[in-house]
């Protein structure tokens, strides 16, 4: 069995709103090129992403909505006609063949699921996926179809699996959370910048699930300006305790890379350290609890030059047990892409230290996050004692 497969098809690059839109899957090209430059990604590791069938999309979406996406992408609808479906807005403009491109991202995550569940590989990565804001009948926050929701339903139906979904994107994983809010066999865990200012505004610790699913949604909203140590403390404690509580058969991680200091859309102060540590622990726990069954997808990440390629490379390196490099990035990669980049690259795997001016009231932010963690995990901790 392979350690891991890298799911990718060039058609995934068709998910493109415009040249100026912040969501830009050129990230995939940049990441793969970086990995190839250090000899860490071989053609035999790459598995083509299939396209999700309509039946599969129906696991998570309304037929009417799928129809709208299809027609919009084939030039048959005006913006006004699809605005109530979240399509044709500034966030999610209409683009040609938007249904096909979106279904290709979902298909990639399903390919990853099959590779892991059929025993072809222990882990699988689809960086084109992770579109966690998609709703049943509405596009939201750059996301048309929700690949993780489809994949989790698929895991339930085809493999009868108990799934833990872990979301470390800087935004709350609302679409996935609401899909499984009443389902006791899917646990969602999201760490994100508080919704005080940031989209989508949800993800409060009090959102714990409903009915049968009460107690299987976990939210860890951290303060704007949170730095590495506090982020990782929350992540590590949350992960260990939720894995132990839920004991999943398989784990699906969403690896948005927008919690970095450079990310233009959020206000967290993460550095490359968190992108080295996040997959490391997910990997370890997947082996401990899930017999290795780990599917990883991409997500947000809007500094596509300085942040995402390095962050996502480290994810693949971790999945394949390759050493995380230190020091200089390959010169050939820097030379190839610097002319296109609007910002100077960080030329090393690590971020410069310090990356930013010290934060006033750092200790209070850490204290507040620690208090939040206590409250969010209280429900498991008290159950354990009794």
């Amino acid at each position, binding site marked *: 069995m392979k350690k891991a497969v890298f799911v990718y098809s060039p058609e995934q690059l068709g998910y493109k709103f415009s040249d100026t839109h912040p969501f830009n899957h050129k990230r995939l090209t940049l990441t793969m090129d970086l990995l190839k430059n250090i000899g860490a990604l071989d053609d035999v590791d790459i598995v083509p992403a299939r396209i999700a069938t309509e039946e599969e999309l129906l696991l998570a979406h309304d037929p009417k909505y799928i129809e709208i996406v299809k027609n919009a992408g084939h030039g048959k609808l005006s913006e006004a006609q699809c605005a109530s479906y979240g399509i044709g*807005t*500034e966030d999610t403009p209409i683009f040609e063949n938007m249904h096909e491109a979106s279904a290709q991202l979902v298909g990639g995550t399903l390919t990853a699921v099959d590779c892991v569940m059929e025993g072809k590989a222990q882990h699988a990565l689809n960086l084109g996926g992770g579109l966690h804001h998609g709703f049943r009948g509405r596009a939201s*926050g750059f996301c048309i179809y929700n690949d993780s929701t489809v994949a989790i339903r698929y895991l339930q139906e085809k493999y009868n699996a108990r799934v833990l979904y872990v979301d470390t994107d800087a935004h709350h994983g*609302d679409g996935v959370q609401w899909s499984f809010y009443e389902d006791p066999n899917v646990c969602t865990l999201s760490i994100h910048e508080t919704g*005080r*200012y940031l*989209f989508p505004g*949800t993800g409060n610790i009090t959102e714990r699930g409903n009915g049968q699913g009460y107690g299987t949604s976990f939210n860890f909203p951290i303060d704007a300006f949170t730095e590495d140590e506090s982020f990782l403390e929350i992540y590590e404690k949350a992960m260990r305790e939720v894995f132990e509580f839920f004991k999943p058969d398989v784990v699906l991680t969403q690896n948005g890379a927008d919690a970095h200091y450079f990310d233009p859309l959020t206000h967290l102060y993460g550095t490359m350290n968190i992108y080295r540590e996040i997959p490391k622990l997910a990997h370890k726990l997947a082996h401990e609890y899930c017999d290795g069954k780990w599917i990883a997808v991409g997500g947000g990440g809007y500094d596509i030059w300085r942040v995402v390629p390095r962050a996502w490379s480290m994810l693949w390196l971790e999945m394949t047990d390759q050493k995380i490099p230190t020091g200089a990035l390959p010169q050939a990669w820097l030379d190839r892409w610097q002319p296109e980049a609007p910002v100077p690259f960080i030329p090393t795997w690590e971020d410069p230290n310090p990356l930013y001016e010290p934060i*006033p*009231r750092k200790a209070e932010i850490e204290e507040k996050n620690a208090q939040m963690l206590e409250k969010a995990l209280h429900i498991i901790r008290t159950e354990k004692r009794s």
Partner: protein
Amino acid sequence: MIVEEIMNDEPYTLAPTNTVLEALKLMRERKVRHLPVIDNERHVLGVITERDIKEALPSSLKDEPNSPVFSAMVEEIMIKNPLVGHPLDFVEEVALTFYEAKIGCLPIVSGGKLVGIVTTTDLLYTYIELTGATEPGSKIEIRVSDTPGVLFEITKIFNLHHANVQSVLVYPDSENTQNKILSVRVKTLNPLAIIEDLRQEGFDVLWPNLPGVSL
């Protein structure tokens, strides 16, 4: 918004002759903390709260199931002739009543009969809905001078970006009484272009600032 739109119009009730133990049981089963007490014609006689019951129990007897308080009738410890509201009251007025009278619930009466109940929880939920936090969106706060026409200038910019505004709240600025803080929730993941245009027009956008650091 009027009370009718947010009240619970099927409240659980007690008769004056129910015992305190029965009241407590109903509260626990239904997960409520306040119960109106009514007669056969649904006239409101009083209100009994979980707190009133706890206070009526001598502290040494709190866990004592045979305390005489439990077998007493609710009319003995209920608040008689409580404040009541009307279905057509404005929610803001009711909120003020809650705050000033320090109460946790208000029976709603029309034609002399109980028709509903409003609690602080209902009011809080209404407030949460008012701030728009139940729909995905980003929040932008803008410090503006307290002069006519400012809101128009700002909404023009939102309109330019086809941004769907979910809610607008206006707060007093704690630092300067000449100013107001406008808190706008807008349905977008990417408010950067709007923020840039607002700043270009000279508006002071607070999104978000370092804690304790004034801009």
